[in-house]
């Protein structure tokens, strides 16, 4: 390690570049595990959709598609603002990053707000998983399964949204305080990546649950 090494360089790396490469690779692998976490639920969804084709189609028509659509637009927009924030970081504009990340967190809050409205609808209607299911309009063996999977998938996604918001907030504040520069902004980039994943998963969830 040369004496004028960057302060962010850990002792066991030779160069900042190598360290950034390691961090990116690590993040991508982590995202792969995240995708597989959801894959289990998607696989369960696929199996039960195949077994209870009609019931699932009916159940999917009894949830609020417009909320899903609005949320999709909100999330796609948030992905755009995150990308802008990351772009700012490569220019060394910490304040700009903080601004765009802040916007993203706001959009995430909007998303969660709509989700809360939607959940309260389900609670009122009795569209609940397993033994709590009391909804009268869709019956039959697969119906409660649809909502079990609905809550599992959207719930797990919601948890990821919250984690993403936390990460963006922390990184945004650190950006505003000038922790990153044009040379060193890997954490900003990785936070952005994570948010894109959260968005991407929703892009799969929306058609699976609301549309088909």
């Amino acid at each position, binding site marked *: 390690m040369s004496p004028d090494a960057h302060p962010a360089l*850990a*002792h*066991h*790396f*030779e160069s900042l570049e*190598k360290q950034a*490469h*390691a961090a990116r*690779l*690590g993040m991508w*692998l*982590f995202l*792969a*595990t*995240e995708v*597989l*976490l959801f*894959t*289990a*639920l998607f*696989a*369960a969804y696929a*199996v*039960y959709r195949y*077994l*209870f084709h009609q019931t699932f189609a009916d159940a999917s028509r009894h949830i609020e598609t417009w909320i899903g659509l609005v949320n999709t637009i909100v999330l796609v927009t948030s992905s755009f603002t995150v990308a802008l924030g990351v772009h700012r970081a490569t220019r060394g504009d910490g304040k700009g990053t903080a601004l765009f990340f802040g916007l993203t967190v706001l959009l995430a809050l909007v998303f969660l707000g709509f989700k809360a409205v939607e959940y309260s609808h389900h609670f009122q209607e009795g569209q609940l*998983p*397993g*033994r*709590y299911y009391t909804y009268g309009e869709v019956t*039959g*063996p*697969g119906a*409660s*399964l649809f909502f*079990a*999977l609905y*809550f*599992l998938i959207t719930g797990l996604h919601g948890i990821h949204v919250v984690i993403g918001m936390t990460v963006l907030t922390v990184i945004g504040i650190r950006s505003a305080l000038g922790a990153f520069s044009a040379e060193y902004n890997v954490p900003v980039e990785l936070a952005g990546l994570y948010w894109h994943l959260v968005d991407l998963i929703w892009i799969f969830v929306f058609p699976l649950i609301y549309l088909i």
Partner: protein
Amino acid sequence: MSPSPASEALVPQRTYLNAPATGLRSWLLTKDHKRIGVMFLVATTVALFLGGLFALLIRIELLTPGPTIMDAMTYNRMFTLHGVVMIFLFMIPAIPSGFGNFLLPIMLGAKDVAFPRLNLLSFYLYLIGAAIALYGMVHGGADTGWTFYTPYSTTTVTKVTPILLGAFVLGFSSILTGLNFIVTTHTMRAPGITWTRLPLFVWSIYATSVIQILATPVLGMTLMLVAIEHAFGWGIFDPARGGDPVLFQHFFWFYSHPAVYIMVLPAMAVISEVVCASSHKNIFGYKAVAYSSLGIAFVGFFTWGHHLFTSGQSPWDAGIFGVLSMFVGIFTAVKVFNWVATMYKGSISFTTPFAYFVGFLFFLVFGGMTGVALATVSLDIHWQDTYFVVAHFHFIMVGGVMMAFLAALHYWFPKITGRMYPEGWGLVGAVLVVLGFNFTFIPQFLLGNEGMPRRYYSYPERFWPLNVASTAGASVLAAGLVLILVYILISLRWGPVAGQNPWRSRGYEWMSATPPPPENFEETPVFTRGPHEYDDSAEAPPTPTGEPSHVP
């Protein structure tokens, strides 16, 4: 080879054991991969003896056809805990997180793993997961078997949720370790270590890590689904609500079959190193051994269905899963032949690690081929869920993984501690373990043939003699393990100083000081030969076949 009679003066002044500090705090908050590895080794060894205690209690219970020392409920908890402790707390982390952590960066000529803090987190997740699982064990324990089959696991009155949660957390420990190793292997190799000069240990651990990060999340999700269903009745696997209990089995084995390779591949990693060092000879087919690890990791993902042959699977499914399972056998066979061929024209010293290597070879071939036999579909119908299956996987798990663990423990004991274990006692221990193991599990093969289903608390009297034989064998095995523990503990303090390279091994890890300093090498080493090369030409400059180092 006997340890070199070295004086205390040969011990390096500054090692990872005494630098930067020696206090408890400096260990608990360390980011040094070697210390984390050692802590993992200690923790997993405790788990090994805990799981072994459960195993002994099970064997004692089965000494007579009726109740012997416990009731049915206790017995069911016992075998569940035995499985959970041995698999999640010992087998999966022991070699990768223990020896892998210690050795992988040294073998790569790196100062540490890519993410040292994550590495420490991984250790604490292990402890937290273990603590949650232990809480569940003390407060009621689960009686589901380690496979948690639904709907039994979702309807049982025992406390299955803490154990599921514990396994979930342990899964994340495993994922983080795997992630760390992959990134380390890709980005932190020292100059001269090309992909074709990677030690075979690293290749195998790398393949293990791939499985860890790809399969474990699915298990995590599946265990969560069972926990949610058990606690809240969401009905995902409940037939009364349209759920499919067999879907659970698919999910479970999608992880748990590859998990077998999470356990076995590191064992193969150890053996590849031990065979070269014991024969003082280059590995016969480097590429074959290296790539077959990746092959096992890959094919291992497509064999899970062979656990479901009796669940009403269609012949199509069964046939495909059967054939794919055989490819794992092929990759394993390639490794075995290459290990044996490595000894040809070698210069073999009969040390304790070598004794375990020979035991490993026998158990792996026998256990592996009975595995292929189980994949021949029609035989599996008779053997499924009998003691034959129990004996088969214990041949791989205990006969394979534990032999390798013990081989690794003896082979790298000087590297880790700077001291030597007593070679004579080491061989006595190895003989006891190998014989005890055979006496424990060969009767179980026969019990399975005879038709005794597994997880039986009481059994018809015709199964009696073989059960007695098995229990007798288990006590020999236990005695062997206790003996090993005793002399290892004694050697920690009073063992003779080992010297820098007691085995005269050419492995990269022996190029650093023994025990290594905190940063592994005084300065970044440059490697000019392969890791398993023992002839003089190996000292020559890098062969032209070696690809230039690149970062993929």
